[in-house]
C-alpha cells in the first residue's frame, strides 16, 4: 500500500475530482430538467465527495478500491472519471467468503483466547464494518494500516468540505450585502 504523498496534494486531487464530479451531476440534472430537491442535491454532494476521496487515492488502498467498486455499479455518469475498479462485485463477494473461511482456520497465538481477546475481536469486527472493504482484509495489521489511511483521507475530505462551505458562506454574505 503506497502511503499518501502528502496532505496538501491529496486535498488538491480530491477537490479537483470532486468539483468535476459535481459539474457532471449538475449537467446531467440540467439536461434532464429535473427540479432537484435539497435532499437530492445533498446526496449528490455526499456521493461525489466519497467517490472523489477514493479516486484521489488512485487505487493504492483496499478501502478506496472497495468504495469505487461499491459505487461503480450505481452511477454511470461518474464511472468514466474514476479508475476502473480492480475487483468486480462478484470477486469482492468471493474474497469475503474465502477470508471468512480462512479466518476460521487461523492458528491464534497463546493470548488469543479469554475475555481480553474476545473484546479485541469484537472491536475489530466493528472497525471492519466502518472501514470500506474492511471485511476483505484478512489480518489485523492490514486492517489497522487501512484504517490509518482511511482516517487520514476522511480528515482531508472534511477539511476541504469545511473550507468550501466557509468560502461559499462568505461569498453568499458578500452577495447579500450588495
Amino acid at each position, binding site marked *: 500500500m503506497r502511503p499518501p504523498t502528502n496532505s496538501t496534494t491529496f486535498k488538491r486531487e480530491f477537490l479537483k475530482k470532486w468539483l468535476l464530479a459535481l459539474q457532471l451531476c449538475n449537467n446531467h440534472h440540467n439536461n434532464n430538467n429535473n427540479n432537484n430537491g435539497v435532499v437530492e442535491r445533498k446526496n449528490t454532494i455526499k456521493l461525489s465527495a466519497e467517490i472523489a476521496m477514493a479516486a484521489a487515492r488512485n487505487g493504492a488502498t483496499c478501502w478506496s478500491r472497495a468504495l469505487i467498486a461499491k459505487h461503480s455499479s450505481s452511477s454511470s455518469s461518474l464511472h468514466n472519471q474514476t479508475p476502473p475498479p480492480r475487483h468486480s462485485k462478484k470477486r469482492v463477494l468471493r474474497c469475503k467468503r474465502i477470508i471468512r473461511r480462512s479466518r476460521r482456520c487461523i492458528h491464534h497465538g497463546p493470548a488469543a483466547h479469554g475475555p481480553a481477546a474476545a473484546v479485541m475481536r469484537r472491536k475489530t469486527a466493528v*472497525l471492519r464494518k*466502518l472501514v470500506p472493504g474492511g471485511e476483505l482484509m484478512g489480518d489485523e*495489521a492490514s486492517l*489497522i494500516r487501512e484504517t490509518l489511511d482511511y482516517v487520514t483521507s476522511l480528515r482531508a475530505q472534511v477539511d476541504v468540505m469545511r473550507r468550501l462551505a466557509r468560502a461559499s458562506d462568505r*461569498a453568499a454574505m*458578500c452577495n447579500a450585502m450588495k
Partner: protein
Amino acid sequence: MSSRRTSRQQSSGVPRITDDQIIQLVSKLRQLLPELRHSRRSDKVSASKVLQETCNYIRSLHREVEDLSDRLSELLSTIDADSPEAAIIRSLLM
C-alpha cells in the same frame, strides 16, 4: 522481520503478524485520535480503547460529512458559472 514467530501456518497462506507490528500500528492510530493524543500516560492506553476511539472518531467524521453536505447543498445550488462565487471556488484549486 527479526521477531517473526515460526508457528504453524494454514494453507490459506495468511502470514503471522507479530505483536510488535500490531503495537506499532496501534500507536500510530493513537496519534491520529484527538481524544487520546494528549493523554499523558503514554503506555497505559489499551489497544481495545484505541480501537473503540477509532470507531467513534470514524463515526463522528461521517457525521461531519453529512452536516457539511447539508450546508453545501444549500450554498452551492445557487452558484452559476460566471458569478464571483465560482471564481472563489476556482481559486481554491490553485
